[in-house]
């Protein structure tokens, strides 16, 4: 795999920096080009910010490891990633079902599709980040 050699790891980091830069530029262009934004667009702002902050943190962390001569990601961080992905997946399923059901049962109306997708990405994204930090620090 690409991630197993030193050159591959550096390539992954460079790719990550490139993609993050693209996201930041697109995001800035989008915000500057839309002086009036609605609720859905307001919701998408924290999602994008979360993605930018997390990816930047992970890229910096891996870069520091490579600079020290260590592998970019050790076994413990790999396991933390698996566990965090697992928690993110479970929370995505629950938030998708929960958001729909809350609207139907409590408010007797079907929610806007865009808001459901935004809620799923936002909630599961936050759960993934918090779990990743927790598992990578606690190592459990």
């Amino acid at each position, binding site marked *: 795999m690409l991630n197993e050699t030193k050159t591959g790891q550096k390539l992954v980091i460079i790719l990550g920096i490139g993609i993050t830069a693209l996201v930041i530029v697109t995001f800035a262009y989008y915000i500057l080009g839309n002086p009036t934004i609605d609720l859905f667009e307001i919701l998408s702002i924290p999602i994008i910010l979360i993605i930018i902050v997390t990816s930047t943190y992970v890229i910096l962390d891996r870069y520091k490891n490579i600079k020290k001569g260590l592998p970019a990601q050790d076994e413990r961080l790999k396991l933390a990633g*698996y566990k965090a992905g697992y928690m993110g*997946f*479970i929370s*995505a399923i*629950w938030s998708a079902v929960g958001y729909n059901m809350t609207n139907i049962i409590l408010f007797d109306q079907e929610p806007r599709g*865009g808001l459901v997708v935004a809620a799923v*990405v936002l909630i599961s994204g936050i759960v993934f980040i918090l779990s990743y930090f927790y598992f990578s620090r606690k190592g459990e």
Partner: protein
Amino acid sequence: MKNILFYLGFISILSILYLIKGDPGFLLFLSFALFFFTYWTKTDERINQNIGRATRNAFLYMMFSSVLSILYINLAGNIVFYQWGFAIVITGALAICVLSFLYYDNTGN
């Protein structure tokens, strides 16, 4: 990890809403009852790791497909696609989770 997967089975209780609302779409929640079977599965470190990898793949798929759906709808202005996008995200994630687990379990990678 199996215990949290087991809890997904409780989503199937929502199929009772069919009796109240009369919408047959609620019966689809019955499919989540299959997660109850994970309670009886024997697990070890390898299986737990494979579950973690499979759910991580499903989570990544959900993130990418959700973002692509939102992007497509905003660019094309096709609001009707939302319901299809939602279905693609959820069913795709469940399918990827199961297929990834089977792959890791069978190949031992």
